[in-house]
């Protein structure tokens, strides 16, 4: 359609091919979850960290592992436990008797794709170790700053906070996640497909079949392309109004931060790119509004008691603002 009246402005063919390949790779093992997979890919393209939440057994970790394996970059996994210490993640200075000097031993956070499994099993002390590295992509230890290698993405999974042995993540850390993707139970058809697929499987190690479709350098290049996509001024105003409304909404104790505004713009660019457009539309913004905002906003106690969810309030916020047209 574009070719008939408008000449192509940006070549998104490489990006779209890569997205299709990743989707195909994930579809070999993961049944359904199309929306979650789209958001995961969008999160990677928008240079964001992603929090995946769901009840046990809905393939949160498997999806994250598959996505990480489909990218040829340094992959690192950290299993969060209640007794985990910050130095177990970041690294620590060790005394070398030969040189009589302290040497920094890198922790597992030094990698490209970091999978943090069950992130909310560790208390706030350990969580705070991730603040600097997640936001600034650097780590300061003993007065020395270590830059993270690009691409640097944290994929974290967590059980809902109501579950046994979990802690609520600090707001400052939640704000550092671009998306919170909620993985739901599969439908009946999907469940049947999962069982059938597993039953017919001949190998036990599914991950062995996964071959990387993108390199770390490709990801960096695609991210730059996504960042350069066009967003009309009126849409930027629309995003600002949306976030501003969240700060004045009576149902909310805590609204969206300026970081949330930036996250919506960046994420909507990635969604537009996945859809093959080099510009953002209001639909893209609304598409990402819930996953960007649901973990950043806090409901008032009375709304929580009424059973209102953050997604309900986000839907109300979206209804309040006029679509720029």
């Amino acid at each position, binding site marked *: *359609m*574009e070719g*008939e*009246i*408008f000449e192509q*402005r940006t070549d998104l063919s490489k990006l779209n091919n890569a997205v299709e390949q990743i989707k195909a790779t994930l579809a070999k093992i993961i049944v359904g979850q199309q929306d979650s997979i789209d958001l995961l890919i969008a999160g990677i393209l928008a240079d964001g960290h992603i929090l995946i939440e769901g009840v046990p057994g809905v393939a949160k970790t498997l999806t994250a592992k598959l996505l990480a394996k489909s990218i040829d970059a340094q992959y690192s996994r950290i299993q969060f436990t209640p007794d985990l210490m910050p130095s177990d993640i970041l690294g620590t200075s060790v005394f070398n008797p030969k040189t009589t000097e302290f040497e920094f031993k890198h922790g597992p956070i030094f990698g490209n794709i970091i999978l943090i499994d069950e992130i909310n099993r560790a208390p706030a002390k350990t969580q705070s170790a991730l603040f600097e590295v997640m936001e600034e992509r650097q780590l300061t230890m003993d007065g020395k700053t270590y830059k993270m290698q690009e691409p640097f993405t944290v994929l974290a999974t967590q059980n809902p906070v109501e579950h046994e042995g979990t802690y609520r993540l600090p707001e400052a850390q939640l704000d550092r996640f671009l998306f919170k993707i909620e993985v739901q139970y599969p439908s009946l058809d999907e469940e049947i497909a999962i069982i059938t697929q597993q039953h017919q499987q001949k190998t036990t190690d599914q991950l062995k079949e996964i071959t990387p479709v993108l390199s770390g350098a490709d990801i960096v290049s695609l991210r730059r392309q996504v960042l350069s996509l*066009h967003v*009309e001024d009126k*849409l930027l105003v629309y995003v600002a109004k949306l976030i501003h409304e969240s700060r004045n909404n009576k149902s909310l104790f805590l609204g969206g931060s300026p970081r949330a505004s930036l996250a919506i713009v960046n994420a909507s660019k990635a969604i537009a790119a996945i859809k093959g*457009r*080099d*510009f*953002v*539309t*209001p*639909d893209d913004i*609304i598409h990402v509004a819930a996953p960007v905002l649901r973990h950043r906003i806090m409901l*008032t*106690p*009375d709304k929580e*008691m*009424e*059973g*209102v969810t953050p997604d*309900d309030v986000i839907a*109300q916020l*979206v*209804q*309040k*603002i*006029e*679509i720029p*047209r």
Partner: protein
Amino acid sequence: MKRLVIAFLLLLFALCQTSYTHAAAVKKISSGKIFIDTTKVELKKFNAKALDKFRTDKNFNYNGEAVGTPSLWDRFWKWVGQLISGLFKDIPFSGTILKYLALALAIAGLVFIILKSLGLDPIQLWRPNAKKTDVPYSESLENIHEIDFDAEIEKAVSQHNFRLAVRLLYLKCLKQLSDKNLINWQINKTNETYLYELTDPTQKQTFKLLTHQFEYVWYGNFAINGEAFTSINLLFQNFKKQLP
């Protein structure tokens, strides 16, 4: 058996003892000697000054009556009380009504304070379906039902503002769909929402194409000249013909 004998003897002893004590008391009274207490009784009095001091102390005024000269503030509240009592004087049981009214107000006030201290909005709690309350829309700057589209499009084309002309064409299209009840036009709905609302597959397909053109021009900031505008305008004219 032995235990029974011991118990019987103890009971017998107790009965004998009681009979002896009673007999001694009766003998003493019957002797007729009563001793009179002649000690002088001195009547003790309270300290009048101390009592007056206590009487003027508000903390000991349990009746709530004004002590001494009432202040201006007390006189004002007394007047208010008399005024309210005056209003209810002809009503039977007005005193009881007032009493229960005051009690109800006090309870309501207490509940209000408790709810407020818990961070709850008492008014919202009693409002039915508070969760499902519709959010009021912000006022639209532009109502598609009030725009003279033909005149505005002509004006935009004459000024070579084809971008604006395409936008007006699209808004006109939405108005036409709304007038024919094919979509429910709302300022907060996106183009994709309208696309889902259309049920006819042919209309849906054409509207998708028109939306695509509009979005490229309006959100994508694609350059558009007179020739491109003519093509787009033709698509819109054809769509109009598809409508019932």
